[in-house]
């Protein structure tokens, strides 16, 4: 008789089988160009976004952009930065974003692939970097994005150093991208990792947490799998100076986290009120 474990393993295989290999050709500059005005409206009027320091990104060639991530499953920092990058360098410059497996297989979000979203894996990232593209990665991912709102100005990549190895092996510079505001788009209460472990979601869906938040329109929002309507928090993003990968993994990781934290601290100091900015 099949056990619960077998059923979960079957479900896991089903999810893995649906995670697409990166097809870099799915990115469509013309589609991006058509969508930029709508995103510009959302970024400028709703989130009153402010993106700085794009001139610190090497003007051409592959680069690994490493950001701190905020805002649950509706993370405004990703789309605001994507918009700014495509506008600054033009949609013609290849630019890919590593996204959670569920984001790339969830049918209503398939259009994100036209923007350059690819499933987060070392193989996909290497493929994109070796093609000469800029790649945006949020190492903290689902762990960092659900930290409690009162830790909104804490950079916590969860000790994930895969991006350092990736940058070293592909010989590309790392450019940290610090942002604030995303964790004020809802009241995030915590990750509740013990619940994810109990439900085996960590093994099945790569979900390390079962976050609980107070968010529109749900009120009490458990897991945030259906997303939420973000509050119009002011999003501020600042690109930091590039970092060469010339030490051991831990040293480079520490340098990136320190750069991100310094950037976040600087931006947080300018903030007078939550949400309003």
């Amino acid at each position, binding site marked *: 008789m099949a056990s619960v474990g077998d059923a979960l393993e079957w479900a896991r295989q089903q999810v893995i089988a649906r995670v697409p290999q990166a097809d870099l050709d799915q990115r469509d500059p013309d589609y991006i160009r*058509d969508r930029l*005005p709508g995103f*510009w*409206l959302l970024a400028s009027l709703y989130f*009153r976004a402010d993106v700085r320091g794009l001139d610190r990104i090497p003007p051409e060639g592959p680069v690994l952009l490493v950001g701190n991530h905020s805002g649950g499953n509706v993370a405004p920092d990703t789309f*605001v930065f994507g918009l700014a990058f495509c*506008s*600054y360098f033009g949609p*013609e410059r290849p630019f890919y974003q590593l996204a959670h497996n569920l984001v790339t297989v969830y049918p209503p979000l398939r259009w994100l692939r036209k923007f350059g979203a690819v499933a987060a894996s070392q193989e996909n990232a290497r493929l994109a970097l070796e093609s000469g593209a800029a790649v945006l990665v949020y190492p903290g991912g689902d762990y960092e994005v659900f930290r409690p709102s009162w830790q909104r100005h804490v950079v916590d990549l969860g000790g994930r150093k895969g991006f350092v190895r990736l940058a070293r092996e592909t010989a590309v510079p790392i450019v940290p991208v610090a942002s604030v505001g995303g964790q004020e788009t809802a009241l995030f209460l915590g990750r509740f990792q013990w619940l994810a472990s109990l439900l085996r979601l960590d093994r099945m869906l790569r979900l390390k947490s079962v976050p609980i938040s107070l968010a529109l329109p749900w009120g009490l929002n458990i897991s945030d799998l259906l997303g939420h309507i973000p509050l119009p928090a002011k999003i501020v993003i600042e690109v930091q100076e590039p970092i060469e990968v010339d030490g051991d993994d831990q040293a480079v990781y520490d340098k990136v986290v320190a750069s991100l934290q310094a950037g976040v601290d600087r931006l947080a100091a300018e903030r007078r009120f939550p949400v309003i900015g």
Partner: protein
Amino acid sequence: MRVERGCIVNADPDTVWKVLSDPDRYPSLLPHLERWETLTEGPLELGSRYTVLWKIGSIPVGGVVEVVEFDTARDLAWINISGVTHRGRFRLRAAGPSRTLVTFRLAYHSDGGLLGLIAARVAARWVGRSLEESLENLRRLLES
């Protein structure tokens, strides 16, 4: 969408032209400038190309532009090669002894259908303010 601003400066057209035809002046002349790069060597002339990005709203907007009209002390016009579709023009006309009417005009088009139209209209406020500040900078530079 076409946005236009004008002002009269206390300088003759040749003096104004000296400033407007000097590419090194633009970073201090254009406000909210995020990126200014010279792509072609030499002085500003017909066919010169520059990368120009202004901060409009939340992000830098612009692209590579090429000078398409260079009528000394009268008209300087450019069109975009990449980025947001737009045309720009500085128009100089004598407005009395040692006085010049300077018109700064920017016509642009956003892709994206209805949202593009709305974005273009919303952006007009920021664009208009940028043009005004540019002319104010020019006036300050010439009259100081």
